[in-house]
Structure formats: C-alpha cells, structure tokens
C-alpha cells in the first residue's frame, strides 16, 4: 500500500527523513520502501494488520514508534433536524455478515472537479481523480481505512 508522507503529517509530526521512517516501520513489522522521490512510502501490510490499511493507521504506528501524539482528523458536522431514516429505509438481510450498516444523506451536492490538493494526494497513492463525489469516498477510504459508497438519492428505487 502506498501512503503519502505529506498526508501522514496531518495526523502525526514527522521530523525524520523518509528513509528513517521506512526503517522504523520495517523494524515494527511493516516492511517499507521510500518511493515517488521521497514523497511516499510503499508498505507491505501483512494480513494480520488491517488496522494499518490507511493513512491514519500508519500515522498511529509512527506516533507510537517516535513517541509523538496522534492527531485525529477534526470532524465538523452540521446536521439538519431531518432524519435520514424518514427519507430512506435500510434493511439488513444477513445480520451475521453485516452487523452494522450506516448511512447519511447529504443535500445540496454539486458534482464537479475536486480541489487540486485532493487530486494530488489521490494520485500519489495511485488513484485517479474522477469527480468530487467519487474522490471524496476514495479519499476517506485512504485516510480512515473505511470503505464507503455514495448513491444518488434521487435514483434509488423503492
């Protein structure tokens, strides 16, 4: 998995050179190589460490290894009084395979081009920018390690 060093800096102070960071991670069981002219790390994540499959996860490792504090992303949420459950109904058919399904409705979205800083970060980790909707879900996946999907509320049948 490729992580951007610039992106990691949002969650942890990194004062070390990229190759030193790679050495630290390698010694901790996350075999790492410096790639893209020192802008990113290519990390081999073993199947026992799915918690490291995100920038936040790798930042957490670096924070522990360098004795720094992990800064979680700041969440700013403006909720309306409308309930999503009034607008859409979600039914889980096999509870043991899907213990939880969360969804949220975002109104007044205008489809367009993502800001260049977001496109740059996605490109470094190997994703192609499509539009702001697709890019945001990919961005959150790479940052938090949580997959999500976006649907057009107007096109959901039933």
């Amino acid at each position, binding site marked *: 998995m490729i992580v951007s060093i610039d992106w990691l800096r949002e969650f942890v102070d990194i004062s070390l050179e990229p190759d030193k960071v790679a050495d630290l991670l390698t010694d901790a069981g996350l075999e790492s190589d410096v790639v893209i002219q020192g802008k990113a790390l290519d990390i081999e994540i073993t199947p026992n*460490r799915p918690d490291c499959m995100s920038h936040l996860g790798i930042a957490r490792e670096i924070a522990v290894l360098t004795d720094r504090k992990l800064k979680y992303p700041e969440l700013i949420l403006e909720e309306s009084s409308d309930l999503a459950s009034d607008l859409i109904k979600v039914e889980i058919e096999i509870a043991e395979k899907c213990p939880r399904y969360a969804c949220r409705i975002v109104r007044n979205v205008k489809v367009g081009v993502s800001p260049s800083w977001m496109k740059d970060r996605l490109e470094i980790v190997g994703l192609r920018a499509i539009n702001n909707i697709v890019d945001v879900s990919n961005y959150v996946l790479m940052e938090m390690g949580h997959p999500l999907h976006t649907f057009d509320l107007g096109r959901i049948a039933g």
Partner: protein
Amino acid sequence: MPLLKQIEEAGREFAREVEQLDASMEALDSLRIRYLGRKGKIPSLFDQVPVQPKESRSEAGMILNNLKKEIEDRIAALRKVTVSKSETQPTHLDLNLPGDSVRFGTLHPVEHTMQDVKNIFTSIGFSVAYGPEIDDDYHNFEALNIPKHHPARDMQDTFYVSEDVVLRTHTSNTQIHIMEKEQPPLRVIVPGRVYRNEAVSVRSYCLFHQVEGLYINRSVSFAELKGTLEFFVGKFFGDDVKFRFRPSFFPFTEPSAEVDISCLLCGGSGCPACKNKGWVEILGCGMVDPEVFRHVGYDPEEWTGYAFGMGIEKLAMLKYQIDDIRLFFNSDVRFLRQFV
C-alpha cells in the same frame, strides 16, 4: 628381337623390379598395371603372337601364358604380404594425442544447495522427512490456521487441482502430516518442491524448492530458534555475514519473523542488488501457533515449538550471485556445468 627373347627379357625385368619394389600398395598397383594392364607389357607381347610364323606360334603362346600366370601369382602373393603389413602397422595412430575426456554430469545447483542445507541441519540433530506435493486444502491451509476466505490466503497464489485439492504452496503442509503421525518431541526438516500460480519473471517461478524446519518440545523458546538459525546462516553463508530478525506475519506462527542477512554484494552499505537497503531476506520463521497444535491434537499448554522455511533457489541465487531464477529451470548446460 624375336618374340621368345622378348618374353624371356620381360620375365627377367619383372623379377628385377620385384626385387626393388618398396612394400606399398601403390607401388604394387603400378607394377601390376605396367605388366598386366590393358596396355601393359604382357598384353603387348600377346599382340605379337598372331604375327609369328605358324610353327613357333603355339610355343610362343604357351611360354607367354606361363609368364603371365607367373606374374599374376607373384603379384597376388605380394599383395597378401603388403596388406597384412599395413594392417599390423596402423599409420594414423598417434599415441601422443591426449584422449577424449568423458563428460561427467554435475549436481544441479538446486540439489547442491539443498544438500548443503540438509547437511547443516542434520549435523545438529534434525532428521529429514518428505511430504506430498499434491495435498488437500486442509493440510496446506486449514490446519495451518489459514481458513477459507481468510485474507492470508491471498499471500500465496495457489494452483487448485480441484476445489479441495491443491499443489502445495509451501512445505509447511508436511508439518501437519508429521504431527498427525508422530508424537512430540520432534526435530525435523522437510525439503521439497512447492508451486505458486505466479507470473514467471526474473524473481518468481511457478515452482521452486523449500526446506521447512520444525522443532517441538516442552518450553521451546524464541532464543533457541534464533540460535539455530544463527548457526545455519554462519555455516551456509560464512561467519562474517550479519543477520537480523524482522517482525512479520504467518498464520501458523506467532510471533513470526523474517530473517535478513547483510547483502553479500555490498556488505550492507547498499547497492542495486539489495535495493539500497543493505539487507536481503532469506527465510521466514516463528513460534508454532497454538491453533496449529489444536488441529493435530497436541496440547498447546504442554507443547511449544518453532518452525522456519526457506527458499532454496533464493539461497542459491544469493550465494552464487545468480540474478535470474529461470536459469535453474532452463536446463542450459552452459549454466549447469558451472556448478561442480
């Protein structure tokens, strides 16, 4: 000159020539042609017979016939002597020439390396066991704590013979076979061929060889694993080679580690061969996961152990500085003959 005199003369001349003849087939042939050939002396004398006076014609013919018979016999006799001489004196044999050397086969570098590894481990008390190359899913995966649909299955690209039968992806399947049959303590190595469904390249091939190690006893410690592998690295690569343990993950060991050695080309300062790291990985190892013991009916509270596995081609490539794994499988004698 009368014909009879000429015949007498020819007979004398023949006798003289035979006396001076050197013992070669060529000289004998030339003699025969000069006397008996179509334009030789004897036929030319015969040509004169019909023009002789009637009363001496038959006498001349008779004498000439006798001479011809005499010459033929003599030449036939000489031929026998000459032939047997050339047989007993072969002229093309030169005893000074060196003989054609017999080409001996050599051990394949994989076999050679395998034997080196086997010798090192048997010298410290490991026995050698073998296991099946075609095995069921249970022995290759399930019993090694790699359940179906577990992400760890993606670590190895597998050739499936059928849904439940695979070409083994590692020699670790034999750990299970041995533990099912034997009771601990155990100390064994398992050399063998393994298969991976991977694109063939400089670094990977669809089959290669491994040597697996398994030690099971009461209170086995990681230090014993380290000591054993340190001994192996020193014996195989030499005592001046540094090595390190690096934490890793295998489903059937916990904790798991990979062992790197200092790059043999640059000695650890970094070069293209080690991707500037100074270290190259040689094997994977760890303490046997209690889950594996449960699968074979050993009490994980009572028994502990370590396991390790190494790729033979990789070891050979490092030791002999071979840069393409495919060379091992191309059967090119120019390559193979370099390993004596």
